[in-house]
């Protein structure tokens, strides 16, 4: 299985090295790896699974940090990648974000975490709830305490009770004065609109996120009004499969705190809430741009934080773009960003202007792709509706909260 894990900074420096098996992996592998990264120009472009002369490498890049794992035996590639992704998630959860400094400042915690997550190259547990019980999070308060009193260990006193319980994701017996549970539907709309303005692909990726603060060992059932719309679903390990299979009911004992109960996909949606119509006409060394944005299919709630972004092609010398609503910014990396916010009632927002091409180029041959983002609070665009949430095994009546949110995922309009 995995023999070694390295954490590299965005300049290729080894920040952390964790040997996992008797076959020591020499650091020089990182130098080899970084040469490949430089040859590709960017670690984001390098394939996640590569063969070096001595090892097979898995790499995952998060926030500029490269998580690199080495092995010499054949193993399921997704297992290596999935594990590294979890490591990245757990670290970012623990350290409140990922960057070079935060890892260097907390390397002891990183070592401790890795120690519990993987032994002898085989992943043990990556469940954040359990790890949190074994190794306390470094937070401002405990940092302050340790400075003041000089006596605080970031290791919790006891071993997690859950390791012995039959619901491994839940601590035994948390106690709350106020029992609360919140269920959020968070959806992302992925859509592609092609050059002719045709919606070629539109689907929703959604998650049911639950934040539970419930005492004891509660048993929850959640049902939907229209479960038939799902194309595919994936569950947190706590969800019992049989009730879902027979009645499309989610029956589960929740982990404590925030977790992702299920994720789902709904495909073949017919329309998008807003339209974006770019028009580029070029000739004689310049290109006229006009982009129109408006509401196509009113979701009944306010569409907020609308922005339209696109990358100016490399052959453009200068750009002069103005809008009748919102602000247009052209960033140093030639990204043009038009933030609209809400669509006003009285007019349709539009952005117009001209791009000047490099001398010698008559017409534009590379057409930019416009990436659109927006947020709609209070509605799940897939049409998914929660029917009811029942709670059993609870001493007193808990508070139940529901919310929905849709935002743009990969929403792109080609010109």
């Amino acid at each position, binding site marked *: 299985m995995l023999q070694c894990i390295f954490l590299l900074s965005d300049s290729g420096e080894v920040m952390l090295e964790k040997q996992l098996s008797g076959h020591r992996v020499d650091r020089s592998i990182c130098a080899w790896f970084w040469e490949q990264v430089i040859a590709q120009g960017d670690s984001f472009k390098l394939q996640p699974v590569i063969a070096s002369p001595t090892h097979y490498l898995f790499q995952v890049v998060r926030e500029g940090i490269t998580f690199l794992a080495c092995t010499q035996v054949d193993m399921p590639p997704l297992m290596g990648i999935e594990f590294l992704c979890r490591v990245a998630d757990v670290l970012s959860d623990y350290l409140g974000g990922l960057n070079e400094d935060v890892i260097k400042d907390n390397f002891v915690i990183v070592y401790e975490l890795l120690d519990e997550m993987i032994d002898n190259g085989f992943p043990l547990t990556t469940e954040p709830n359990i790890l949190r019980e074994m190794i306390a999070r470094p937070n401002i308060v405990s940092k302050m305490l340790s400075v003041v009193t000089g006596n605080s260990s970031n290791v919790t006193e006891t071993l997690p009770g859950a390791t012995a319980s039959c619901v491994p994701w839940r601590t035994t017996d948390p106690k709350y004065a106020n029992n609360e549970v919140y269920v959020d539907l968070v959806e992302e709309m992925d859509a592609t609109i092609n050059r002719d303005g045709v919606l070629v692909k539109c689907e929703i990726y959604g998650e049911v996120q639950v934040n539970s603060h419930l005492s004891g060992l509660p048993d929850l059932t959640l049902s939907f009004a229209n479960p038939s719309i799902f194309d595919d679903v*994936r569950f947190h390990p706590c969800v019992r499969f049989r009730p879902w299979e027979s009645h499309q009911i989610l029956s589960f004992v929740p982990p404590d705190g925030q977790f992702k109960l299920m994720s789902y996909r709904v495909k073949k949606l017919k329309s998008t809430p807003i339209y974006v119509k770019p028009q580029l006409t070029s000739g004689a060394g310049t290109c006229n741009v006009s982009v129109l944005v408006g509401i196509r299919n009113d979701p009944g709630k306010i569409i907020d934080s609308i922005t339209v972004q696109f990358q100016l092609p490399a052959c453009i010398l200068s750009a002069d773009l103005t809008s009748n609503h919102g602000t247009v910014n052209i960033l140093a990396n030639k990204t043009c960003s038009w933030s609209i916010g809400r669509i006003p009632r009285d007019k349709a927002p539009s952005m117009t202007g001209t791009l000047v091409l490099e001398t010698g180029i008559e017409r534009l041959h590379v057409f930019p792709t416009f990436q659109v983002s927006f947020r709609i609070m209070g509605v799940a665009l897939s049409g998914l509706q929660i029917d009811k949430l029942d709670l059993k095994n609870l001493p007193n009546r808990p508070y139940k909260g529901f919310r929905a949110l849709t935002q743009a995922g990969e929403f792109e309009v080609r010109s």
Partner: protein
Amino acid sequence: MAPPVQSQRSPSPSQPSGKGEVSDLKLQLRQLAGSRAPGVDDSKRDLFKKVISYMTIGIDVSSVFGEMVMCSAASDIVLKKMCYLYVGNYAKVNPDLALLTINFLQRDCKDEDPMIRGLALRSLCSLRVANLVEYLVGPLGSGLKDRSSYVRTVAVMGVLKLYHISASTCIDADFPAILKNMMFNDSETQVVANCLSALQEIWSSEASTSEEASREREGLLSKTNVYYLLNRIKEFSEWAQCLVLELVAKYVPSEGSEIFDIMNLLEDRLQHANGAVVLATIKVFLQLTLSMTDVHQQVYERIKAPLLTLVSSGSPEQSYAVLSHLHLLVMRAPFIFSSDYKHFYCQYNEPSYVKKLKLEMLTAVANESNTYEIVTELCEYAANVDIPIARESIRAVGKIALQQYDVNAIVDRLLQFLEMEKDYVTAEALVLVKDLLRKYPQWSQDCIAVVGNISSKNVQEPKAKAALIWMLGEYSKDMHDAPYILESLIENWEEEHSAEVRLHLLTAVMKCFFKRPPETQKALGAALAAGLADFHQDVHDRALFYYRLLQYNVSVAEHVVDPPKQAVSVFADTQSSEIKDRIFDEFNSLSVVYQKPSYMFTDKEHRGPLEFSDEVGNISIGIESAGTVVPVQRVEANDKDLLLSTSEKEESRGPSNNGSVYSAPSYDASAVSAAASQTLLELAISNPTVSGHAPQPSLEIDDLLGLGLPVEPAPAPSPPPLKLNSKAALDPSTFQQKWRQLPISLSQEHSISPEGVAGLTAPQALLRHMQGHSIHCIASGGQSPNFKFFFFAQKAEESSTFLVECIINTSSAKAQMKIKADDQSLSEAFSALFQSALSKFGLL
């Protein structure tokens, strides 16, 4: 997304300038070691942190080993952890000092806190110093019996670590048996999972020497064991589930109902949030149902949605791993994703490695119903900002065109690319149009009209230029300007740096000459002169060859250089199906990502400990493990090396024909230098493997030209009696290459007589007998009751070859034959000959 831009980072203040700092640390640690002052733990912690941070950035701090150990007799768990980390890192290089740590680690192993016990035990086993193993056995023994499951989990892994340090100590202490017992009885599933992984590793490596271990290893795959694990699978952590599923994938159920039981039990694993679990489950499903065609198809339907979710919901890295698997699946069952092609549309933000795989998927799923949409989508990528992807997508359009029957719309699109006035688009499109014309000559009129408008000055890339020149030569009759364009290209001979282009130029001008002699004569002369003076060996040789050919006889030269051509039906560079099958057997492993079976990229020593089925899945042509190969003729290497060498050959050949597809008929690989199919024919004349018998040269040429071309007398109605060349020769690598390229033309099964079975006790006799009938054996192997033979034969007076794979099972008295032939029409006749030869031996 982008990391915060950090300009020149100032060196961190803790960066030590040299040795001074380390010795300073040493001094401070020594002072603290004996102190009992309040707050001493805290200053120790700071110092430890410093030491570890030096260690992390790669500074050697092993000199403070003694002081670290002295300081670590503290109760603070963070201090302990840091110390364990330090000790684990340096013990191996300081075995003497490591002895110092044993004492306090052993004491910690008896601590009240289970966490400390576990951590200490883990560090103790991670010291990996061979002469300290005696101190391990005791703590491990009690660790395995600890009441805390955390300690037991650690202890089980410790046993495995001990095994790797000293196998004999581990076996002598009888740990494997204890683990086996724990595997069935422990209440904590993580302990069970660790037992399983430890036992798999221990017994697999013991199996080669110990009969008992190999039996135990088989025992892991027994029904009781597999069912025991399956029944508890939901209690396991997600990673342990992967381990169990991997084991189950190797289990062979004894009856059909078991298959359904297992699939029912595991169905909900397909809904798991962890992609690794989903993929491992899919592997189980696919492996279980391999023999049940109907169910296998249903499995494809069932796994479709989870796989697509994995592709679209995960991070790009996860998508990449999943897409590689999808590609494998779609190769085997193209229909499964044909209605979900939109999932493989590329998104702007995706990294190019994902886009590339998606393009491959789009090519693979294209069929009559969705081609139009897919090609429309691909055409949009051609204007992509990402130039490599733009190129790939044009190539994808071309590939789709080559695999479709209805290419009308696609040809129009390709021709539009040519008019896009972007050099790389034009270049890619030219190469594609060339391949397209070789497969669909009927499109030549439309294409040539557009190609004729392209100025050769705008085409710079060698590949594209070669394609353009090829078309100029091939269609010089219909392209008005062809001779003059060629002439101007020849005038610039000196500036042409690519040998490939120069070679093509020679051939094209020859072809043009045969069609329009008066206009081309001058250019031909200039080309031959320039070619003869060329410093490049191939170019020079080809020019000389053409020159002599023309001198000998112009009409023969035309026959050789520009014979009437048949449209190419299948391009040869598609991956062989046997390799794909092999990769499929290794579903959910690195093989899939590399698109190579694992034996092609892993050394034997590095192969996973879980590689149970090494002998079972061996499908490729050499078969049988090294020991049982009977050396016949020139086969001295074992099969794996053989395969490896041919695959390497292919790889080294890869770059030269990368991107464009050549139809290499089944000649020796050396013939595929950098030439298109018809030039192969010319080169075949000098091909040594063909000239087994050498009559007059002129006849030889005619003979060769007859090969595979319609000139050959049609044998179909009444085939002339087939005669075989008794001195036929074929080297193993050519055999392998042919075996992979040719389709099976005949597949038969016969029962064999008992006398024949008896005769097989000495396979050599059979081989000699067959040789008497001009059928030669190139490789054979196997042990009773299964024997496998590879034969070949060549037609007398001609180089048409027959290849036979013959599998004989003596216990069921059956013989299976697969015949492949250069000339399919002769395979019936050959089969009759082969059978009569076998029956004369008494086999049939």
